[in-house]
């Protein structure tokens, strides 16, 4: 257990350090999301949107940004040739957990920036900020869990073909998208709130847990040759 934790933390620390040095993934993620939001805001113009449409736009941008920006976690290891070292020294579960936490932290940064820009550009009124924050948090868990496994799968097998990740990711994430949009909609409307979103939050929690459990079990098969 101790070695597992140490390995997990070492992966996390190393990736965050590398990220802070180059700032490639985070910059790409943020700029992609900002660019997409600006495009969407300009396309919509000053027309007022319903809460449902606003929630749908926000989550579409988050999903696309994650699919484009989070695919690098394992490809960089392949490129640097460090994958063998990790295979020899660490348990697969520790590698997965470390990368998962890195992706989760990146997604949290993305959420903060994207929601801020979204509120300004699309003139969103958030009635229940706590509910919105919890929805984003729980949604990010599931999103990070699925993206980490599938990006490992693509990096290990298909040599990191870029467009493959969205193709694999989107159908799997439909349940997450639907409940997250519904919960976000409740967070935007004064008349709704925690009581109406309870089931969606529960679904998001369950989805995150199931995805991560399945990913930990399946990760062994794609990590080890």
């Amino acid at each position: 257990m101790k070695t597992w934790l140490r390995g997990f933390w070492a992966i996390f620390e190393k990736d965050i350090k590398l990220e802070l040095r180059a700032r490639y993934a985070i910059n790409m993620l943020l700029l992609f999301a900002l660019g997409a939001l600006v495009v969407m805001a300009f396309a919509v113009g000053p027309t007022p949107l319903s809460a449902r449409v606003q929630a749908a736009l926000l989550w579409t941008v988050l999903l696309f940004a994650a699919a484009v920006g989070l695919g690098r976690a394992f490809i960089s290891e392949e490129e640097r040739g460090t994958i063998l070292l990790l295979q020899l020294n660490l348990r697969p579960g520790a590698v997965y957990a470390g990368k998962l936490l890195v992706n989760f932290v990146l997604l949290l940064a993305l959420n903060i920036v994207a929601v801020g820009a979204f509120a300004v550009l699309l003139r969103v009124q958030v009635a229940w900020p706590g509910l919105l924050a919890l929805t984003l948090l729980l949604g990010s868990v599931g999103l990070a869990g699925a993206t980490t496994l599938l990006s490992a799968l693509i990096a290990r097998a298909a040599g990191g073909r870029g467009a493959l990740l969205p193709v694999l990711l989107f159908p799997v994430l439909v349940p997450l998208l639907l409940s997250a949009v519904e919960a976000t909609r409740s967070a935007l409307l004064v008349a709704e709130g925690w009581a109406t979103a309870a089931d969606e939050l529960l679904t998001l929690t369950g989805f995150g847990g199931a995805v991560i459990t399945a990913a930990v079990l399946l990760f062994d098969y794609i990590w080890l040759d």
Partner: protein
Amino acid sequence: MAETGQILNLRRYRQLRNAVVVWLTLVVLGAFLLRIPRIHILEHTARNLYFHVPMWFTLMAAALVSAYHSLRYLQSGDPIRDLRAREAARVGIFFGLLGLATGIVWARFTWYLGTSLWWNFDPKQSFVVIQLLIYGAYFVLRSAVEDPEKRGRVAAVYNLFAVVTMPFLLYVLPRQMESLHPGAEGSPAFSDITHPIMRLVFYPAVIGFIGLFWVLYTQRVRLALLEQRVEMLQATMLEAKS
């Protein structure tokens, strides 16, 4: 491979195939010839029940078979498991598309009569579309990997990962979309509204179409095995020449 001999048991295959052919012929005859109660708007289109609904059962059966063989592939690494998972998914797509087509056309002229809607986000339709998208992604993934052993492993992992998310979809979709399908909230369950005559044809139809799936699926598995063997023979012949 111990299993190859069993797969090539042609006698058993032929017997089962003939049984399925006879059975399905009887089902189709029954489906078109037996009298059914005439209900306003539905009229004779109610016979679609015999074809549309069994497609779903067959798609689910195919998905189960495919996931089971993916799991076994990860455990054993036997190439035949990968072939079986692939072919079950492929035949499953075929039945899924047929079910979707029969459902959309039928719903347009019964449920959505007068609204000119082709698509109204029915949970069951949406579920099938996502299932088909997943299988589409599964085949795209397969075509992206060259090494057969790696391809099998990666595809099996994706297949199983998708299966894990399915129950959530089944739970989430009906909460957000209204359904006119029998058994959903507000409409009686299938067995309450169905005339006994229709049940007499419907249940055999389900068995018949699952049997048809089995025939097509085993046929494709054997074809894939033979193709593999031909490739191997050609490779050895080329080597012997040079």
